[in-house]
């Protein structure tokens, strides 16, 4: 972080996405004594991506807790803590290691309020860096957001910029219900943005329209927003104005924003890094087909990963959707008249 480090007041910081996460965590720890950070290596080490850097030093061992190496446990104790009014913000080191926490998230985090008809609730956040593109070993590049999006009672939130990371994470922590907060690690340090550390959250359950355009709609989230914006820029150079929507909250999905845009443009490309079939993009494409059929001037195009595991790093790039792929899909939607 290039500006001052204090989370008091409302300093402005020129920060990367991961630093914005750190800023939001620091702010939440400062503002609310019930907030605790837990996970593997979040303490002294400050997290393997440094998202929790310096928090142990500032807030101590009771608030920034290194857990044993057990993801089911991390999720399970978070449910327990949250049920008693605490606000656990748990880190799963990589999304590839979130799978043993699935049972707790599906069976308990997302159901405690409903099961008890509001008597107990589960205001926890499960953070995890996700996605590929950093040439990491196997299982370090997963994008399984669709799995969590399908689970009732969970929010799934994904920032795509430092400002949105800061604002959405604060709102996720303050939300009275469980949030799976997925951080696109490929863009953890891609750009710096001015983030005003004023404790202001950004709204959940709503898309962000990052670019206005009348010719087609491009819908994406997380790291792929980067390529999507690049594609939009290139298309603009070619005279095509793309509207770019960052879904941000994957579930529950804000279809209103997406549908309004598609009704305007009549064309849509959905971009997702995850394997193609049964992904988040499927739901978005289906909803557009079902609810804006008469506006569609061309079939929705999905630009996605393949139905394969992410290759080992040497061939990772073969898997990843590219800016050129997005442009090609956009062009395809424009061809149909």
């Amino acid at each position, binding site marked *: 972080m290039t500006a001052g480090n204090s989370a008091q007041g409302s300093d402005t910081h020129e920060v990367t996405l991961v630093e914005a996460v750190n800023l939001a965590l620091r702010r939440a720890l400062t503002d609310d004594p019930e907030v*605790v950070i837990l996970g593997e290596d979040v303490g002294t080490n400050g997290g393997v991506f440094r998202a929790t850097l310096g928090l142990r030093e500032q807030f101590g061992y*009771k608030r920034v807790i290194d*857990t*044993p190496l*057990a993801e*089911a*446990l991390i*999720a*399970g*104790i*978070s*449910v*327990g*803590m*949250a*049920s*008693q*009014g*605490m606000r*656990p913000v748990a880190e799963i080191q990589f999304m590839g290691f979130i799978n043993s926490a699935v*049972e*707790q998230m599906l*069976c*308990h985090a997302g159901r405690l*309020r*409903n*099961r*008890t*008809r*509001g*008597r*107990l*609730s589960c205001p926890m956040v499960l953070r995890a860096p996700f996605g590929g593109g950093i040439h990491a070993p196997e299982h370090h590049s997963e994008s399984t957001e669709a799995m969590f999006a399908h689970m*009732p*009672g969970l*929010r799934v939130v994904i920032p795509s910029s430092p400002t949105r990371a800061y604002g959405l994470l604060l709102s996720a922590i303050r939300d*009275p*219900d469980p949030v799976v907060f997925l951080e696109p690690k490929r863009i953890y340090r891609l750009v710096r943005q001015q983030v005003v550390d004023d404790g202001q959250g950004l709204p959940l*359950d709503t898309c962000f329209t990052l670019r206005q355009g009348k010719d087609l709609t491009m819908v994406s989230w997380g790291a792929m927003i980067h390529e999507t914006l690049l594609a939009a820029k290139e298309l603009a150079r070619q005279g095509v104005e793309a509207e770019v929507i960052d879904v941000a909250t994957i579930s*529950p*999905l*804000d279809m*209103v924003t997406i549908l309004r845009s598609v009704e305007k443009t009549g064309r849509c490309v959905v971009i997702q890094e995850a394997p193609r079939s049964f992904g988040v993009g499927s739901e978005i494409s289906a909803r557009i087909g079902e609810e804006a059929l008469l506006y569609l001037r061309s079939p929705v195009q999905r630009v996605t990963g393949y139905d394969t595991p992410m290759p080992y790093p040497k061939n990772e790039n073969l898997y990843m959707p590219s800016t050129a792929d997005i442009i090609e899909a956009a062009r395809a939607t424009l061809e149909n008249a």
Partner: protein
Amino acid sequence: MFDNLDQAPGKLGYIDARGKPVRELPDEIDVAWLQASYRHMVRIRQLDKKAVALQRTGQMHTYPSCLGQEAIGTGIGLAMQDDDVLVPYYRDQATQTIRGVTMQQILQVWGGDERGNLFTGVAAKDFPNSVPIGTQMSHAAGIATAMKSRGIKQAVVANCGDGATSRGDVYEALNLVGVWQLPMVAVINNNQWAISVPRSLQTGTRTLAEKALAVGIEGLQVDGNDVVAVYQAVSQALARARSGKGGTLIEAVSYRLSDHTTADDATRYRDASEVSQAWEYDPVKRLQIFLHELGHWTPTQEQTLLAEVKQQVDAAVTAYLGEVPQAADDFMAYVFAEMTPTLLAQRDQLLAKLERDSVAQGGGSDDSR
């Protein structure tokens, strides 16, 4: 029946299977306490019987009986203090009622109505029972973490069955209790069976208590059919926990006298002789004999109690059967703190559909599709 002799309930407690004293009762156990325990146990047994009967007559869904486990639930319930938190499993009806969960609520839960989990009072922070085996143990560890972190001298009691000890998450939670020295008491109801799988097929250890050794906490075995033994073990473990000395794993050796649930038929996999032998260890009967032989329980008292309990159980059943249904959209209303636009739209669909069906059927939506 019991994997080995020193696990036989009666060997690790105060009152043996024939109602005879094994050793001197602890000081805090007086006649009033014993009578109160007995009343609790008789009450829960009657409730349990009634629940099974309701299921048999189509007025209740699948129900897990706690027949034979009354001493475990009662001993735990009486040992807990109000500000402790209970994380039960599905055979903890006795503990729950002692903590103020109503009999009607217990019937509601198994009758298929979420409102049965709307505990109040002492139980307001207790967990409802957890259906996925073992998953509740880490909730308990989390609650204990919250207590420790807040510096409050409370403790958590978390229960599970013998089968549950095979689940990795149970180990993970207990391991955390050990390394963080959490104020948590875990009680394993070793009723010898996990549906049709005997304890001997769950693990190669001689006892379940010794699993404490792998996580660095105290472990002990008690006679789970002796309410005094369970009470003593849990009380002492809770005292240790509250005073910051860490957690305990208690194996309460018992026997599941009932089918696994009303959906099960235990005669398929275990001998009648085993069950009838297990009845000789009946926790309720032995306490009755013990009290009786002490001169503190008469047939008249028994009759009065049974009449009283019948009235209470009948009242609960009447309340249960007569309850106002939940609103049709209640199952949508509590998914999030506020209904999302998606759910609001789905609610509209639901209500329109119910309206449609009610018109089609000439009014009144019912249970058939």
